[in-house]
């Protein structure tokens, strides 16, 4: 059996939890009489949730409504969601007031490279921590866990000196390079996930003559799709919204990222609420789209992070 066949024929990942857990709360049957609540209790919690949801969703909807209003409409519309003048021109005008496509390119470059790098490096390290027996493994893993508590701010001044020595101030490199070498948190997630896969996977691959690298690449990496997606999305959100690093390194107008440009607008054309909110929505849009595209994996990934 070739390595490829093994990865195809590999048994489904071992149950992720030792305790039986209902993965899908929405479809679960009522477990017992205890969990079944009185009708009044249900109605009350439903009402509370609905009321809370309205309060929660309101700023979001209000942002969308306001971004589509004319300036007169803002004055008369106030806090209501209706009427809306459907001034889609706000978007064209908002994006036209700055080099949007250039900043979008900068943002994509400083987001996608870290996403690809950190996911691969973290998976590689997580696999090594989970499966390759070695001297010093436990100690190094303790170091990984320890660095999770370190605030990144401790290194911003010395990192600035480092990038100055490398001639990288006012380039995009400082927004990319520190984030492609894996993150302790993702390494931890991958390790936990790989530890739950049956150890026979490794044995079978090694017997078939695959080295460690091949075992990781052809078997473990494809099996860890949930963690791959979850960590890629988390890194995407972090890099896309990263503000501290651009604020430190980028003063050249051509190299700004979208959040840095957006922060600059609050003082420049801050009085034009519809334009500003339209621009904000465009900046947020990729994150929202990705969330809805991979919702199941993201929710699963976030749940995994907190309970493991």
């Amino acid at each position, binding site marked *: 059996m070739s390595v490829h066949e093994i990865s195809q024929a590999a048994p489904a990942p071992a149950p992720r939890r030792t305790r039986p857990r209902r993965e899908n709360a929405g479809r679960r049957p009522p477990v017992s009489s205890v969990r079944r609540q009185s009708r009044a209790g*249900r109605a009350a919690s439903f009402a509370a*949730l609905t009321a809370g949801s309205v309060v*929660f969703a309101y700023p979001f909807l209000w942002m969308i409504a306001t971004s589509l209003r004319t300036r007169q409409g803002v004055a008369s519309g106030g806090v209501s969601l209706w009427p809306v003048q459907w001034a889609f021109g706000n978007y064209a005008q908002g994006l036209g007031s700055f080099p949007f496509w250039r900043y979008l390119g900068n943002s994509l470059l400083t987001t996608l490279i870290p996403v690809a790098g950190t996911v691969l490096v973290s998976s590689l390290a997580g696999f090594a921590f989970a499966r390759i027996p070695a*001297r010093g493994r436990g100690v190094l893993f303790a170091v990984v866990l320890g660095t999770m508590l370190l605030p990144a701010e401790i290194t911003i001044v010395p990192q600035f000196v480092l990038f100055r020595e490398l*001639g990288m101030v006012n380039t995009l490199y400082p927004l990319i390079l520190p984030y492609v070498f894996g993150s302790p948190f993702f390494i931890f997630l991958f390790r936990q996930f790989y530890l739950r896969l049956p150890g026979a996977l490794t044995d079978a691959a090694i017997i078939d003559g695959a080295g460690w690298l091949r075992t990781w690449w052809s078997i473990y990496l494809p099996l860890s799709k949930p963690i791959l997606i979850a960590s890629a999305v988390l890194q995407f959100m972090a890099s896309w919204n990263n503000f501290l690093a651009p604020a*430190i390194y980028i003063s050249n107008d051509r190299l700004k990222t979208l959040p840095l440009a957006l922060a600059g607008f609050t003082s420049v054309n801050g009085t034009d609420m519809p334009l500003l909110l339209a621009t904000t929505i465009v900046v*947020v849009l990729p994150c929202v789209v990705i969330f809805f595209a991979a919702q199941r994996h993201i929710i699963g990934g976030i749940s995994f992070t907190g309970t493991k």
Partner: protein
Amino acid sequence: MNPVLQQLADLLGRFGLVPGLRPLVVFLIILGALAALVAGALALAVKRRWVRRSTAAFWLFVLPWVLGFALFTLGPMLYSLWLSFLKWDLINPPSFAGTANYRAALHDPLLGQAVKVTLLYAVLSVPAQTVLSLAVALLMNAQVRGIHVFRTIWYVPSLVTGVSQTVLFLWVFNPQYGLVNGLLAHVGIKGPAWFQDPDWALPAAALMSLWTVGGNMIIYLAGLQDVPPDLYEAAALDGAGRWRRLWHVTLPQISPVIFFNVVTGLIAAMQTFTQGYVVRQAGGAPSNSLLFLVYYLYQNGFQFFRMGYASALAWILLAMILALTALIFRGSAFWVYYESASPRARRARVRS
């Protein structure tokens, strides 16, 4: 740029490399040299039978992370410690200043303000976030119908973070046209000036942080669904009502999750930067009412170019985070319940 590296970059330039890529290639050469050094050492060690092949493979696999960690975290941290004893404005050569930076920090009224703002923000926002996200998760867990819809509604605002969230809430809290004061006006209350008012800017920032509790809520929801149902049944058979089941079954069972969220929330709150920066740039947060510690660090390092003092501030921040985390870890023995811990181990944890 470092003179030696500059020469290397010039050399690359003579081979026709475009200027934009020169620093990157210099960096990659350094990185490759370090990696080759480690790989060579490992190959030698395997050949001499000092280490087993799998040990060498392990270290090669973790090498990318180890190199990144050494270059961008460990090395800079050690350097930062050294910097914190220097006086350096990036232009003139650095001079040794002993503990002058730390002594200056003791008497710096702005640092006092920054510490006050940061701690107050953490104290206001973290408990409020915890209570809100836990309450919503409990409601959702009880309410089976429509859980997906509710979960999405509560999570989507978390996608609007950082600059976008602050820009939005500058308008939500706008004294004249804003959402909050507009609603308050409907019920006849004249709202405060929020971000424009030194007394209300911090509460506004804490309120704003409640909007992005969706991530915490999802983690709580997962924790709640992990509570074994037989515990509830046993409690009900013993005559426990809803509230006693919540207090004696649910909360102890998910206390490790609460602990995780409180620790990560606290560390995140201590690292707040964007809110303070963006509000300040928009002309809000008067009299340093949103001078977060990291913002003050940023000002010192990259606006006043006091590299030594900024490094000292970073270490003060780290000390504060570690102290708070240690405090919570120490206190956790009293309220965090781990299924696996034996009663004796738990008592030992409390006593130690």
